[in-house]
């Protein structure tokens, strides 16, 4: 019974982690950017969805849509106003671009977080789920929303897989991650590819944020933790490797759920951190990463 409960809860959490980390790793893989405003963007998506659906009274579907739109707008802004100017700036030496992008996105994340806290307070908010009700799976009470979360997460990841592997545009993304210069030589405009990647990222982070808001509830104080968990999953799986991130998301999700159920919820994240340190020392490229 408990085993089944862990299996179901862990699966839902893990798929959500997988979705959140996919966007994060995609950006890193294609354009080499670690976006530290990731958690804040997810929070914005969730809070806007909550506001539009609840206070504004537009219903959960419009709310979810508004949340994703807000996340898309934030992602776009992050790229145009922060990441791209830093990458193109002549006065920042090349080897320091990375730290500037990190600091810049970190500050932007704090700004988003504070703006949310100011406008909507930092109380935890639960987005109205798209579907309500519970079902019994072999005697375990499971909210329908939990199943929907897993299904939607995987649907989004599946669509991304099709996009990257089956369409011409998607293949150019893949090519950009392997050899950006070669791609420009073939007449592709790199900046348009980057805009596209950030757009995909915005949508993925938005969906993840809204689902998280409906599943566990979100407060603006969670932004840092969300970024840290995406960062850990991505490093555990291997930076830039999408399949590695998916695998790592499940490892992290199940490890956390098991710790919470079997030992104590208060040390939920500790085993993951220890595992992370061990993996990084023994195999710095992560589970499936290339060096």
């Amino acid at each position, binding site marked *: 019974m408990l085993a089944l409960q862990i299996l179901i809860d862990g699966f839902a959490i893990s798929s959500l982690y997988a979705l959140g980390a996919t966007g994060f790793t995609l950006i890193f893989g294609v354009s080499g950017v670690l976006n530290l405003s990731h958690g804040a963007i997810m929070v914005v998506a969730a809070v806007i969805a909550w506001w539009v659906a609840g206070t504004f009274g537009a219903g959960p579907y419009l709310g979810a849509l508004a949340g994703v739109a807000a996340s898309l707008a934030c992602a776009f802004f992050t790229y145009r106003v922060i990441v791209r100017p830093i990458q193109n700036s002549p006065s920042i030496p090349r080897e*320091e671009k990375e730290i500037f992008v990190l600091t810049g996105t970190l*500050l*932007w994340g704090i700004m988003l977080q504070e703006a949310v806290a100011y406008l909507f307070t930092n109380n935890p908010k639960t987005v109205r789920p798209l579907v309500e009700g519970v079902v019994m799976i072999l005697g375990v009470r499971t909210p329908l929303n939990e199943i929907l979360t897993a299904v939607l997460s995987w649907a989004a990841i599946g669509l991304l897989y099709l996009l990257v592997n089956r369409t011409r545009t998607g293949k150019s993304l893949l090519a950009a991650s392997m050899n950006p210069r070669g791609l420009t030589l073939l007449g592709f405009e790199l900046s348009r590819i980057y805009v596209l990647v950030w757009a995909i990222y915005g949508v993925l982070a938005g969906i993840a944020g809204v689902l998280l808001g409906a599943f566990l509830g979100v407060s603006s104080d969670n932004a840092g933790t969300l970024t840290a968990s995406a*960062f*850990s999953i991505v490093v555990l799986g291997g930076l830039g490797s999408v399949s590695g991130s998916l695998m790592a998301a499940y490892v992290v999700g199940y490890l956390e759920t098991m710790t919470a159920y079997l030992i104590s919820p208060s040390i939920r*994240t500790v085993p993951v951190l220890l595992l992370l340190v061990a993996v990084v020392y023994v195999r710095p490229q992560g589970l499936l990463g290339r060096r």
Partner: protein
Amino acid sequence: MFRSRTFQIVVPALVVMALLPLGVSGYILGLLTLAYYYAVFAMSWDLLFGFAGEVNFGPSFLIGVGAYTAALLNHYWLWPIPPCLAAGAVAAVVAGAVLAVPALRLTGPYFGLVTLVAVLLLQNVLVLFAGITGGEIGLDLPDVLSIDDNTNYYYALSFMTVSGAILYGLSRSPVGLILQASGQDAIEAAALGFNVAKHKLAAFCISAFFSGLAGAMLIFYLGTASVGTVVDIAVGVNVIIAAVLGGRRTIIGAAVGSIFLIAAGEVLRPLGQLSTFVVSAVALIVILFFPGGFMGRLLQAGGRE
């Protein structure tokens, strides 16, 4: 040395700061005291980042280890303050070395992540053993540095000046140049016969020493050690913002950035919750438009040294 621009800026500034207690209220002195300890955090971070090129996302790991070692010794064994400070600094160096020896094999984001995880683990440990460490509420200390504002202010000012002078001198010494070379191109530096790993480890230990010592002094100034003041990720983020804002690779800039951050937080206090937003926005604008930071701008304006 006496004619260098840095010297011409720093000495008058120090004189002004030393004279401040004559005409400023105790409240402002208290803020500046805090800012001076932060300045030491930021300067030690700058040595590691600006010179060795390693992004330490967890300055508050080193600060926290130093602070809590001192706090526990003082709270449970009633050690007097000086040995507590020494023990805190030593503990931070040991913790830094334990963290750095394996971590320096890693580069870029991996090193950053390990240092970040170190902070999260320390925070978890402190909260889990709340019975001993006081957890989120904190651990009060039987001893404080002084109850007099002026004395506290001078302790902090002289501590900052001495640490700053040592760190600055180090950064301009041959060792500092080797560090800088290893940060910019580790392979070439190694090819020139320098032991990159050894120098980076030394930089990490020095950074840890000053962070730990400053952390320990800070809690004896505050009279209590709590996760929120010395370990939280937010503390580390502030240190990083201060160093980048003031101008990386200048050491002095990190101190300027810290004082600015604390002062800005205070000036913007009427804005309430929005003050963090405004401070972050200002820092972001500085990074985007003046990547050299305050000191970078100031030093450049008068020609290179």
